[in-house]
């Protein structure tokens, strides 16, 4: 069925091809620059070149694997506990809370984690009060693991919970009627339901932990606990050793590439409609053990999540917010952040819209033309291409490409916007694509039969139907960009400062109180954006 006329089809496909080309050029140029520099240039100055890189690469994989295990296994238990208890006060809030880390700037979370678990943190106060001689330090592997679990346990829990809540209510009735034990229920009902989802979830978490930058930068400790991404940053910004950065970046590319290939094999985690306390009742007798176990997990999980958030809020409120807000540099950083975020979000959402439209426009052609089929696959694969090159790697590529030809830092705003827009694109596509598909399924034929086209169709049918998804994607992209420390860490300077960058500076110069205040501001802005985004997801808002 052809719903667009010839001219519209051609235009749509051309625009899509242009975006595709643009993205490929940005990623490709970076990758090419890395490869050419690696093969053409002199050896690194570091004497322990191989050994160091080997160690960093090994640590990257090890910490990611450990983080994944520590996130996914407890997530199974927590998701199960939440699913089994359809009614308890705060259930809805807890489920909302599980979504918070998704949009929270890592630097803000890192600060919160230090407030709780750090040297001067609540936990150490407690331990010292109990008679421990020396405070426990979390910097290094423990800190990295804690932070990764803080971010990925909720993510994994949400994805698994969504699956568990899809179990038909008749299953629970049958289980109740057959008198299945806890163990049998898990083995016969819950495990089969989530089993298929686990490789995808674990792969996603592994990917996020392999490419994690900010958390490792802030919570890692010394060369013993450094990942490739942080090592790239240090090579470029501190050791002035671009060749080493290049080698590291190529290793990272190879690693993410291999991971993406594995992910493609095991399948992406199915993203369900987000969960909103929709749950089936369970029948049968509760043992005291099960009751204590479930609520114990729920309370511990909730505390683990909420404590760092509250401590950021408390520390932020205790800081001199009025003075901070009056500081020139804070205002400048906020304006820069918002401008970069808004621009990156607009570009990202526009690119996604063009790509999705092109994909649809080329659908009728795909039946007869292999070129159109290839084009459609290319659009589908673009997200993977972007994930292949995390912001730091992309930034490193452009850094070595531009170095020597132009003032790298002068171009910083452009590069940061581009990197942030690209970085958000996979997430934006994930929101907009299903929304577009279901919108078209609902209205496509009707619009075509009524002869609605062009602006009229857009204003009457498409915009009202897709608005929610559009704003949701934009808010999400903006939150991601606002919280990003990757691109700005490479390209930031006295001239271009964003809120996370300023926060990093204040943290490094031990101006803890300022850092807390800025973290609160940054966290609040992102939280508001996330609430807007989540509001758009409620079924009542006519979403998708």
């Amino acid at each position, binding site marked *: 069925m052809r719903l667009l006329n010839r001219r519209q089809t051609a235009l749509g496909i051309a625009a899509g091809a242009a975006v595709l080309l643009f993205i490929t050029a940005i990623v490709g140029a970076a990758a090419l620059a890395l490869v050419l520099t690696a093969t053409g240039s002199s050896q690194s100055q570091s004497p322990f070149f191989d050994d160091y890189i080997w160690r960093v690469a090994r640590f990257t994989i090890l910490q990611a694997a450990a983080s994944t295990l520590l996130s996914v296994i407890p997530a199974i238990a927590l998701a199960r506990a939440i699913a089994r208890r359809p009614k308890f006060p705060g259930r809805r809030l807890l489920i909302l809370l599980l979504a918070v880390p998704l949009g929270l700037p890592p630097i803000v979370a890192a600060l919160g984690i230090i407030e709780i678990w750090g040297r001067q943190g609540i936990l150490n106060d407690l331990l010292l009060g109990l008679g421990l001689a020396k405070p426990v330090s979390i910097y290094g592997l423990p800190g990295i693991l804690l932070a990764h679990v803080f971010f990925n346990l909720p993510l994994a829990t949400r994805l698994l919970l969504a699956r568990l809540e899809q179990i*038909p*209510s*008749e*299953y629970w*009735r*049958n289980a*109740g*009627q*057959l*008198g*299945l034990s806890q163990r049998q229920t898990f083995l*016969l*009902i819950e495990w*089969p339901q989530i089993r298929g989802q686990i490789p995808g979830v674990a792969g996603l978490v592994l990917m996020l932990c392999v490419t994690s930058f900010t958390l490792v930068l802030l919570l890692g400790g010394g060369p013993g606990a450094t990942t490739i991404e942080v090592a790239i940053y240090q090579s470029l910004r501190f050791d002035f050793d671009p060749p080493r950065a290049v080698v590291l970046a190529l290793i990272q590319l190879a690693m993410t590439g291999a991971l993406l290939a594995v992910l493609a094999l095991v399948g992406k985690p199915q993203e369900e409609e987000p969960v909103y306390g929709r749950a089936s009742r369970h*029948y*049968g*007798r509760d043992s005291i053990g099960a009751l204590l176990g479930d609520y114990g997990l729920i309370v511990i999980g909730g505390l683990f999540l909420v404590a760092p958030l509250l401590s950021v809020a408390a520390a932020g409120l205790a800081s001199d917010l009025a003075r901070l807000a009056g500081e020139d540099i804070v205002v400048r950083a906020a304006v820069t952040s918002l401008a970069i975020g808004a621009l990156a979000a607009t570009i990202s959402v526009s690119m996604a819209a063009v790509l999705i439209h092109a994909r649809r426009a080329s659908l009728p052609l795909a039946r007869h033309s292999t070129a159109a089929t290839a084009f459609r696959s290319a659009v589908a694969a673009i997200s993977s291409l972007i994930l292949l090159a995390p912001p730091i790697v992309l930034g490193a590529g452009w850094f070595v490409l531009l170095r020597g030809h132009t003032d790298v830092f002068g171009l910083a705003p452009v590069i940061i916007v581009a990197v942030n827009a690209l970085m958000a694109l996979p997430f934006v596509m994930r929101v907009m694509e299903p929304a577009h598909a279901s919108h078209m399924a609902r209205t496509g034929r009707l619009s075509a039969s009524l002869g609605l086209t062009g602006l009229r169709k857009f204003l009457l049918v498409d915009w009202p139907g897709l608005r929610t998804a559009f704003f949701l994607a934009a808010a999400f992209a903006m939150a991601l960009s606002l919280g990003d420390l990757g691109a700005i860490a490479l390209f930031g300077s006295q001239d271009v400062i964003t809120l996370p960058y300023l926060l990093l500076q204040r943290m490094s110069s031990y101006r803890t109180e300022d850092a807390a205040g800025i973290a609160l501001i940054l966290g609040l802005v992102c939280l508001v954006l996330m609430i807007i985004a989540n509001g758009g997801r409620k079924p009542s808002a006519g979403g998708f």
Partner: protein
Amino acid sequence: MIGGPEIALEDVRFDYGSAPMHFDVTLSGGVTTAIIGPSGSGKSTILNLIAGFETPDSGRVLIGEDDVTALSPAERPVTMVFQDNNLFAHLPVWRNVSIGLDRATNRSAGDRIVGGALARVGLAGYADRMPGMLSGGERQRVALARVLVRQRPVLLLDEPFAALGPGLRTDMLALMRTLQQETGMTVAVVTHQPDEAERFADEIVFIDRQAIAGHGPATGFSSRRDIPGLEAYMGEKDR
């Protein structure tokens, strides 16, 4: 097993929050009772109250001589079959049936019982298939095989064959009838087809406006004039 127990709802009140329901009825033991009535009248709720998936706000549920009001579903002498999702999709047919066996049953006796049950519902040789490979009717037959294996004296069916075509539905009703007569179970079926109810059931309960409006022998039930609301319901069905 001859002569399943009678089932009594004594002054049972229950409220989902929208419409308070009141049921006071005794279903005869060892026969098939069809429960009919308009949508939302509370047909399924009656079954849920008997099976223990819902607990009355007040009143008692008796099965035979026993007050089961406070018992959990597993503790009641009841098996309930739903319209759909009776089988665990990831378990083969034999496992879906054997899950109903008493835990103490040993392996070879269990295999024999499951095989026998499958044969009785016409599914001999289907033991190793997965539910996804079966038709809707075959899946409900597996559910019935599990009913046989569980040997509970009460069988409740909530529109079990509503999703099947007319021919298949007739076959399934005949099978259900046969099994009931062989085992002597007490059977209660919620159905949307009053005409069918008259053919396969011994008694009919008519529910209207969240309460029992009429109860009597199936034969000639639909033409009774003494039950308020029944004519309107039947007329609605005819249209």
